[in-house]
């Protein structure tokens, strides 16, 4: 297992290099001259040339990449055009806000998804199963920006509840924007977590149904194991194998989804940062954010693979 983890970590190195090449090339793929864009439309040619020289844009392509890579490895992602500050500083705490948002959301997704999936599978075709899967289908089909807006409408601005219904008043329960307090966290996490919960629920259900029919489940029952043990010990561990993969992919989706959710809830996370950076044509900042997000995704996949190996003893990544 230890050897496996080391080997798997080493395997991320080429992925990392690939990511830097793509991110670096972004700057050159964008139409127009970066130096011209930085200097502004009406800037004199001299100034543009100056910037070009300063950024090393006159150097051959591989040299530029090498400079970029060595800077990145030293933790230097360049300076923001708009604010002039370090990109690392710009990303700074916003990175943690997005990680927090994604983490809470994935926890919510996994928690709801697993419970719904298991309950559905154990009582296949029951009323509970059908209801849960309908809800899951609904959750899956709902665009999360719309869900976010609806949640704000209902729970942050105020419920339009007739006054004669007791216990529910029209006071806003949660806050529609910002990040930090519990009241601010709840709605965005629900918004971002719902889609994932639905996918995980459906995946868990089908995976559980497949596993429950396996011979070793019958063996466990024939051994006299309690039904609870049969489901949670024998079936679930096997059923989780495909679910873990989905959770990993889901996390990638969450990073993308965070862009929308952060915009809807005005959260100052990385998603909002990248949107603002794109609008301002702040290339170093876009580059830096995309690089950090990609690395986060690589890291999550690393964790998924290790979990996968732990669950499925037959896996050998050789």
């Amino acid at each position, binding site marked *: 297992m230890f050897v496996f983890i080391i080997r798997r970590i080493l395997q991320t190195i080429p992925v990392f290099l690939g990511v830097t090449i793509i991110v670096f090339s972004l700057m050159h793929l964008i139409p127009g001259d970066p130096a011209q864009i930085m200097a502004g439309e009406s800037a004199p040619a001299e100034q543009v040339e100056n910037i070009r020289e300063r950024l090393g844009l006159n150097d051959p392509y591989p040299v530029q990449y090498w400079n970029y890579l060595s800077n990145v490895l030293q933790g230097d992602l360049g300076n923001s055009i708009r604010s002039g500050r370090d990109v690392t500083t710009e990303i700074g705490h916003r990175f943690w806000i997005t990680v927090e948002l994604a983490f809470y959301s994935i926890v919510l997704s996994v928690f709801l998804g697993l419970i719904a999936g298991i309950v559905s599978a154990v009582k296949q075709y029951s009323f509970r199963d059908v209801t849960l899967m309908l809800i899951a289908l609904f959750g899956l089909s709902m665009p999360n920006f719309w869900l976010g807006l609806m949640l704000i409408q209902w729970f942050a601005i105020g419920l339009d509840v007739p006054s004669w219904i007791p216990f529910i008043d029209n006071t806003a329960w949660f806050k529609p924007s910002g990040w930090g307090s519990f009241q601010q966290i709840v709605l965005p996490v629900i918004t971002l977590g719902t889609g994932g919960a639905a996918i995980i629920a459906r995946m868990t259900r089908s995976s559980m149904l497949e596993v429950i029919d396996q011979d070793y489940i019958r063996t466990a029952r024939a*051994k006299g194991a309690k039904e609870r043990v049969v489901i949670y010990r024998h079936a679930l561990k096997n059923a989780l194998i495909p679910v873990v993969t989905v959770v990993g992919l889901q996390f990638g989706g969450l990073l993308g989804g965070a862009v929308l959710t952060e915009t809807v809830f005005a959260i100052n996370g990385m998603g909002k940062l990248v949107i603002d950076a794109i609008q301002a044509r702040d290339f170093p900042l876009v580059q830096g954010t995309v690089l950090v997000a990609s690395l986060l995704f690589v890291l999550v996949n690393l964790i998924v693979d290790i979990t996968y190996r732990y669950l499925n003893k037959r896996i050998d990544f050789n």
Partner: protein
Amino acid sequence: MANESQNFDNILEIKELQTSFFTEDVEIKAVDGVTFDLPKGKTVGIVGESGSGKSITSLSILRLIDRPGKIVGGEIIFKGENLLDKSNEEMRKIRGNQISMIFQEPMTSLNPTYTIGQQIGEAYKIHEGLNKAEARKKSIDMLKLVGIPSPEKRIDQYPHELSGGMRQRVMIAIALACNPDLLIADEPTTALDVTIQAQILELIKELQEKLDMSVLLITHDLGVVAETCDYVAVMYCGKIVEYTDVKTLFSNPQHPYTVGLINSLPSHEEDIEGDLPIIKGMVPNPTNLPSGCRFAPRCPYATELCNTLPELVTDDNNHQTRCWIYTDEWNGSTEVKTYAERNS
């Protein structure tokens, strides 16, 4: 028959067992009124082709029938008590403890995510409340007993690291961990190589004597029956058509189906020219069984009489046959002969 006084020389008495599968509009009677006894310490074989209901009979004993299947009627008397009257919890305590089962597919019958030791040890934890260390020690003993070399090393391996024969030995170790009174072996050797088959059967026989167990052996292989069983029940389309001791079954088979099966075995003694005899026709569709004798459409001796279902007839030697030929009403041919007889 159901009211007959219980005989405690029998560890298991199955009476008029009925297990059906329900689809949207039809009931498929997989096991239809099966009755037989398993004498203590003996081995009873159930023989039949695929779909004859032999596996469903064995799963019914442990009440492991999954939806849409259901035990519809009958009694399963184990050590004097009807298992069908037990609560689920009582039944759970019997499984793996007093009655154990091994299955056909050793490749898929072990959980791929747990070690051999964890899977054997679980039985001890469930039924004897042993802790991890005690369970591990006993599991190693069990692996030794079933003849697995270097059990201290094997115990921490996962099923995929073992061969089919080894896995079946592990299955036997799990089944016998808590010293059951009855072992149900559902085609334990079908998925194994012939040489491994012999080893596994030998092992079951040896452990049966050592641990004083009774064995119910489900198989479609008459050779296995001849080697291991004391008594044999032949099943066809959910019904027992013949029940007798193993010697009589081979020397004096009565039911035309049994006769057909034995005739179709290749023989070592004689030079057979041409093809082996076969039983003509096909097993009827379980949703559309003949109303009379289930075997009648394929039976070379069938008459009008066979359009009604015959009862199991017991002769003086406790040889039971479900066939009109052995009743007084019979008026057709009586020349039910084995292959050997026909050639002499």
